[in-house]
């Protein structure tokens, strides 16, 4: 028994399986499929039509469609992952989870594992919309490069979501933070316009979010850039993703300590 609990891989796997079961215990699979196919379509449509209306020569509809196709990942990797701690609170399971000797990192990364799969599916569908409905030209695309960009961005943004999730241990709800960061990416991450459009003081914040590197790399991959040409951006994205995950773990321990000492763990 104690061997099972001290084995991080086993804890990770059981946490991942449990998270998937818990999701479908309340979410009808048909509803999940509707969400998977519907969310990105309307987000891309909204910004593509806005771009068409504004008609800025520096921002093509293709630019906007690719940016939003990748950013649709945020619903899963930021919103859903950020709410992990909040949902544990709502279900009344956070105390049991935190008093168990299981490795924290394995438990919470495991909780997010299904969302990585969910995120990959969401973005793949979003890129299909970009090609089939919004007429993005994929004739020159480096598909392997694009798949790598999607994979790295999904992992990095899930790390970002986990970092935000740690706030949910201390705050009454993580839903507010999740909502803020779900939308703020649309403004800061070069999704709808180049980061250079932003005021100088905001641009460092853009580069602290992995999605910024991802959107730029995705556009390059669609234009046919090789893996070698993408490696700089992908390396930076992976590095930022790694840093936010480590920061998230440290924040998690810090907020766990604060929540225990102030008795706010079950406040929601």
């Amino acid at each position, binding site marked *: 028994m104690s061997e099972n609990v001290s084995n991080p891989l086993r804890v990770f796997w059981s946490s991942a399986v449990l998270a998937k079961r818990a999701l479908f215990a*309340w*979410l*009808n699979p048909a*509803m*999940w499929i*509707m*969400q998977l196919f*519907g*969310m990105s379509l*309307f*987000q891309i*449509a*909204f*910004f593509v*039509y*806005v*771009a*068409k*209306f*504004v008609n*800025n020569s*520096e*921002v093509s509809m293709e630019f906007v469609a690719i940016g939003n196709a990748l950013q649709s990942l945020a*619903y899963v990797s930021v919103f859903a992952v950020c709410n992990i701690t909040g949902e544990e609170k*709502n279900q009344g399971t956070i105390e049991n989870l935190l008093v168990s000797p299981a490795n924290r990192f394995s438990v919470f990364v495991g909780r997010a594992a299904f969302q990585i799969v969910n995120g990959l599916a969401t973005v793949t569908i979003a890129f299909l919309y970009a090609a089939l409905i919004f007429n993005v030209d994929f004739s020159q695309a480096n598909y392997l490069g694009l798949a790598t960009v999607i994979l790295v961005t999904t992992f990095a943004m899930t790390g970002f979501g986990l970092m935000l999730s740690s706030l949910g241990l201390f705050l*009454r*709800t993580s*839903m*507010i933070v999740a*909502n*803020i960061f*779900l*939308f*703020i990416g*649309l*403004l800061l991450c070069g999704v*709808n*316009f180049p980061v250079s*459009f*932003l005021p100088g003081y905001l641009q460092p914040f853009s580069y602290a979010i992995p999605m910024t590197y991802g959107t730029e790399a995705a556009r390059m991959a669609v234009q046919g850039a090789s893996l070698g040409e993408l490696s700089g951006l992908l390396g930076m994205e992976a590095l930022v993703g790694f840093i936010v995950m480590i920061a998230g773990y440290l924040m998690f321990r810090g907020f766990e300590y604060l929540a225990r000492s102030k008795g706010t763990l079950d406040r929601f």
Partner: protein
Amino acid sequence: MPRLRATAASFRHQAAMFWAEPQWIIPNIIAPFVLAMVVLMLYQEPSPEAVLYAVLGGGMMGMWGNTLYASGFSIQSDRWWGTVDAIFSAPSPLIWIIGGRTIWNALVGIVNGLFVLVAAMVIFQTPLEVADFWLFMLAFVLTLLSLATLGMLFSAAFVLTRSAQVLTNGLEFPIYVGTGSMFPIFLLPYWSHPLSYSLAPTWGIDAIRYAALPAYADGFSVGYWGDILYLAILSVLYLTVSIWLYKAVDHRARKTANLMRY
């Protein structure tokens, strides 16, 4: 009178719930505010008309976000708290109880809408100078009421499902797109126009633009008062259908006995 008392009590209850956790207003403000900012950043150097166009759309989206989330969670929260069967078994029909909640949410919606307007005005240093203030206010309030009736329609349907939360999240962008909150609906595919025309807020935002923008060229041919007329007709239709739907939902919920399942 007892029905109105139920509505008043429901209004007070909803207000108390709001003040217990006022931070919930943030999610409803952040989305329209960020979206309006994105549009203005796309312009790079927006003209005062462009700023007004974007913030008016942002204001409408602020009101819709609040209405949608309030109606989506209206019964879902009762499910979580275990109070939904008490509400259904009360002698007052459900529609009067939901009505009280909707009126409170509409008031918060005004705050949301105005916050987005004022914040964008301050950031882009453009004064809110509307062409005709009173026509603007009339269109603004009527649009809010139309959103409230649309929210009631959705909330009746949400009673039947355990997935109200998912539907709530999923309905945000479709309404932004369908109503042309940030762009004229003639940019949308022609086949989708009837869907846009069936949404009362589409007429509302057009009326708001007519009243606010001195040289509004993209408006519907029916003009300001035509917009108001269609807005009113559709809102009454939504309200009528939602009253009928609430009765049907009430009947079904008692018959299937699965109201508390979540």
